[in-house]
């Protein structure tokens, strides 16, 4: 007999959710800001930080996907079927974009001839030799995917807030750290 779904996500899932959420917002904002800067040490610094953050998000997303596939999520709160489907597709889109945005950025970096050296010490392999024409093709792909991710995140946040504060169905408690830390239920690791 399958175990009944838990009331909220595991500590690890909650930690990964908020960590990635924070990293995404920060990295997106730095990305928007840095491209407008003139050639300067500041610009160079922000570009590298942006790349390091992107690679970190990619690594965390791999861990998160592995965790998600091996751990049962909490039960859905009651909602119309179309909303359930929308939520499901939004979650899938988020996961796809967690990978697609950093990978496109990595590919752009490779093609532009500026390979990524994570935290200034760990060189990542390049996708191929520097190729200016290819870099010019990949750049808008990275940006478009990032905007798409921002849009889905906005929809995700709006829907979560509507559930919690308009429908008052307690949806946020499934992912809220405070609640998870104080709970003493046996299924939480």
């Amino acid at each position, binding site marked *: 007999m399958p175990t009944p779904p838990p009331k909220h996500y595991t500590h690890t899932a909650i930690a990964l959710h908020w960590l990635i959420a924070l990293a995404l917002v920060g990295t997106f904002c730095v990305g928007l800001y840095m491209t407008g800067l003139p050639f300067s040490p500041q610009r*160079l610094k922000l570009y590298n930080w942006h790349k390091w953050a992107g690679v970190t998000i990619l690594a965390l997303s791999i861990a998160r996907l592995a965790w998600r596939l091996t751990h049962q999520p909490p039960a859905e709160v009651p909602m119309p079927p179309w909303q359930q489907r929308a939520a499901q597709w939004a979650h899938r889109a988020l996961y796809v974009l967690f990978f697609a945005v950093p990978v496109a950025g990595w590919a752009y970096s490779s093609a*532009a001839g500026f390979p990524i050296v994570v935290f200034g*010490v760990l060189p990542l392999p390049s996708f191929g030799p*520097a190729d200016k024409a290819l870099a010019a093709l990949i750049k808008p792909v990275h940006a478009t995917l990032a905007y798409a991710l921002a849009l889905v995140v906005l929809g995700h946040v709006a829907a979560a807030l509507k559930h919690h504060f308009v429908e008052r169905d307690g949806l946020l408690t499934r992912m809220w750290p405070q609640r998870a830390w104080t709970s003493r239920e046996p299924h939480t690791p």
Partner: protein
Amino acid sequence: MKTYLTIAAFSVLSAAAASACAQQLVPAHSEIAFTSKQMGVPVDGKFKKFDAQVAFDPKKPEAAKIAFTIDLGSVSLGAAETEAELAKPDWFDSRKFPQATFQSAGAKAAGGAGKYEVAGKLTIKGAAQNVVVPVTLAQSGAATTVTGAFTIKRLDFKVGDGDWKDTSMVANDVQVKFKLALTGVAPI
């Protein structure tokens, strides 16, 4: 008999030619490149325009005279934006100092066939530094390829001044690599 004479005459002539005019650089087959590190990221660049006057006899390296001029405005970094920056006063200041030069002071054989050390003065942006450049000669037919690499400190030449002095952003060490094709070098 006639053939022998002709060959002999040719040998004398070519020997005279070789000693009279120095070796020639073949720019199309030569390359001067460098690698700098920006926050740990290696960034490769090269100079498209340079010239050299080389008088070098592998048997008498101490008599060598090697002079280089490198056109700093010909720097290529793969990004036009960066190249425009490099011309500015904080970097090469190439309007005021269009060329970097190298003037040898002496050369000597190093361990191994075709290996030499060339000492000399490298001048970039008006600042001169003594450098010792290890080179390796490889010959095939009439062509001689000289390869070598050495490291310079960019701040010794005030390359990357002002806001760019911070070596945690752009490393002080810059690796210079070159491959020079020469004709007319006597056999090693």
